């Protein structure tokens, strides 16, 4: 059967072009790969190559024709023993004819757009009950993180940790202390200073089903690796149609430490919370650090686990249980109250807790919600609280624009507008790179007085 040669589209946006030149004549033998013609698009001159073999039977669009629509028949190719006369009258013999027979339109473009399906809602389990009489042990966040990793490495031989100074040095911040002794160099892997590279190595290993914990000495250095985190780890499950993903944890300190200036003082909560395919956890207490890190290691998805250098040395009660795992995606009500909802997470909780104590002295009963997980965000818990208090203030150390707080404010405004008695105020770090000077650094960070002022404003108790 004669083969129709169509005007090809040569870019994602091309709709028509000029057939500038035929390089084969009627009657010429053609093999696949031969250049038949040249066409001009708005961008460039391109060659039309033959796909099939045969004899060029009839040229239907002469050279020099402008505005030839994509998919118009421009020539007919004949097989062995076929003649040009045998070719049925071409359906779209000239350039003006619309390309209505083009399968593209039927197959793809003309369908009415389907309505966008609703995003699925997932239920997150509540925290496990801690049996009465459970011993509470005062533990630093540092020890809690180490214990979580050690327990999970004992439980699952596929779990390993890699990063700079995690093994022989025992961790730049001593989070991996003792792990090399217990698990050996196969599972506690010192890497060169090569964040982009070892993040990619970790993702590749995870794609085969291993469970890497990739430690960044700080998340500031993970900027070098952010392509692997987002483009490889977060998107592979989707791009592979569910065949493979990256079950792994990226962890390390994020946010300001003390006097380390702009390049080492940045909170990444909002950054990573933007990305579908990631979970983002940022604990405050040692118990949450332990229970959530264990959950993150077991989670089949890539989890960004944001720690804080200042919190590493803080002590909190941690329940002494064989296997204390907390749900990712569930906020924790740190303190119940009725007058205003304070939402914070990570180091932001430090300011919030102090502010709440001051507010109590003024007779303001604040509820504190520790988000714990930034993505998926437990907005229902926040909404429940706002329905009760009618007022909300968010507190974080990150930059103010597109912050976690602005996200909370948007969602509460959309979902609980009628319950609000005042605009939501968002306390964040100042919109400046972190300065070095002690006084300026202090000014750049949120402070307790700002929270108190914000609460006074939303409760109209100035």
């Amino acid at each position, binding site marked *: 059967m004669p083969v129709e040669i169509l005007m090809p589209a040569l870019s994602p946006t091309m709709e028509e072009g000029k057939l500038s030149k035929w390089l084969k004549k009627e009657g010429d033998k053609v093999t696949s790969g031969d250049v038949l013609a040249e066409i001009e698009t708005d961008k460039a001159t*391109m060659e039309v*190559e033959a796909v099939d073999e045969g004899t060029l039977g009839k040229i239907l669009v002469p050279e020099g024709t402008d505005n030839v629509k994509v998919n118009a028949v421009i020539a007919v190719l004949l097989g062995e023993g076929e003649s040009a006369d045998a070719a049925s009258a071409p359906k779209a013999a000239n350039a003006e004819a619309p390309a209505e027979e083009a*399968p593209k339109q039927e197959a793809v473009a003309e369908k009415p757009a389907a309505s966008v*399906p609703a995003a699925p809602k997932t239920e997150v389990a509540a925290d496990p009950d801690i049996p009465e009489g459970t011993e509470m042990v005062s533990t630093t966040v540092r020890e809690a993180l180490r214990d979580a990793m050690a327990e999970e490495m004992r439980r699952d031989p596929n779990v390993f940790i890699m990063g700079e100074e995690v093994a022989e040095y025992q961790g730049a911040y001593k989070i991996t202390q003792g792990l090399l002794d217990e698990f050996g160099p196969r599972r506690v892997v010192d890497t060169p200073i*090569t964040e982009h590279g070892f993040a990619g*190595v970790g993702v590749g290993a995870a794609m*085969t089903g291993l469970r890497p914990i990739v430690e960044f000495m700080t998340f500031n250095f993970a900027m070098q690796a952010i392509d*692997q985190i987002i483009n490889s780890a977060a998107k592979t499950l989707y791009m592979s*149609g569910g065949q493979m993903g990256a079950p792994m944890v990226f962890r390390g300190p994020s946010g300001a430490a003390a006097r380390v200036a702009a390049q080492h003082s940045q909170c990444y909560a909002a950054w990573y919370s933007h990305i579908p395919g990631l979970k983002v956890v940022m604990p405050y207490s040692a118990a949450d650090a332990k229970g959530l890190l264990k959950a993150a290691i077991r989670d089949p998805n890539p989890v960004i686990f944001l720690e804080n250098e200042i919190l590493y040395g803080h002590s909190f009660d941690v329940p002494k249980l064989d296997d204390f795992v907390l749900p990712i995606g569930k906020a924790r009500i740190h303190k119940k109250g009725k007058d205003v909802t304070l939402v914070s997470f990570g180091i932001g909780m430090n300011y919030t807790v102090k502010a709440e104590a001051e507010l109590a002295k003024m007779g303001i009963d604040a509820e504190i919600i520790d988000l714990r997980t930034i993505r998926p965000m437990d907005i229902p818990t926040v909404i429940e609280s706002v329905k009760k208090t009618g007022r909300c203030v968010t507190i974080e150390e990150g930059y103010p624009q597109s912050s976690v707080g602005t996200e909370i404010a948007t969602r509460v405004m959309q979902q609980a507008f009628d319950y609000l008695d005042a605009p939501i105020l968002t306390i964040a770090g100042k919109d400046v790179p972190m300065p070095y000077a002690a006084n300026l650094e202090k000014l750049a960070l949120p402070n307790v007085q700002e929270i108190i002022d914000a609460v006074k404003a939303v409760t109209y108790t100035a």
Partner: protein
Amino acid sequence: MATRAKKSPARSAQTSAIKAPKPIQFTKEQELEAYRHMLLIRRFEEKAGQLYGMGFIGGFCHLYIGQEAVVTGMQMSLKEGDQVITGYRDHGHMLACGMSPRGVMAELTGRRGGLSKGKGGSMHMFSKEKHFYGGHGIVGAQVSLGTGLAFANRYRDNGNVSLAYFGDGAANQGQVYESFNMASLWKLPVIYIIENNRYAMGTSVLRASAETDFSKRGISFNIPGIQVDGMDVRAVNAAGEEAAAWARSGKGPMILEMQTYRYRGHSMSDPAKYRSKDEVQKMRSDHDPIEQVKHRLIENGWSTEDDLKKIDKDVRDIVADAADFAQSDPEPDPSELYTDILL
């Protein structure tokens, strides 16, 4: 080759670039296998180009025409469980790994029967079953990931090697060298295959690379490298066998620079004005990987023109079937929008 293998692992720069092993003569069966595989890739890609021209395939589409001997020869040197990972010019690699032409073509047209359910497209396909780890659209990312596959092989001590393919353009990315360093330091079983097709999109290697002998790119890391005639499937296979044996025996990575050529533009919308028609024509007429095999098959009296026409017809039928499927298979159900984001 045997004498070099007896040496202790190279510690000095001078020994890092090693001579290509002589192309081994293929048996009749090997020639026929190579012929069929390469022809499938060629015909598949021609059809993909055609479907792109008809508007069935959208976005970016990078064809592998001209480079078929590289994946075909390498695949012939692998054993079950060895992994493959590559960049965005990936259709040939997937077919060589044994992934279904229907699945690949339907992914190109964005249909539900595509290997990624229509959600990945030309540059992002995977197959756990065939140990193919993508299909990556970020130039160079697959090199770190492929090193991670080798890390996993070492962790599991499973005797498998991983093949990380990348181009002469990707060879200038920083993470490639971060990966070289770790792979050599930890003696990971990975083969780095640099498909040097002379152009990174429109930039020739001469304009982009201070050192155009890519087999030497591992010298600082004590990784040996071989320059290979990537248009000769036998040469590719010989180098692949050597590199696989090297990596499998615990000696660490090896670099294979495949000197190859793409006949088409970088992508479908590339008019390829940066090179002469004569240059392309000369490669096609003098070095075509498929014609070389065809010539030997006939010269040796192993096949007649008719035998080969029969193979050609079989391959065309497979491709036509894939194309029909890819055009008739429905688009993904709208509910797929929100699946496979998190487990």
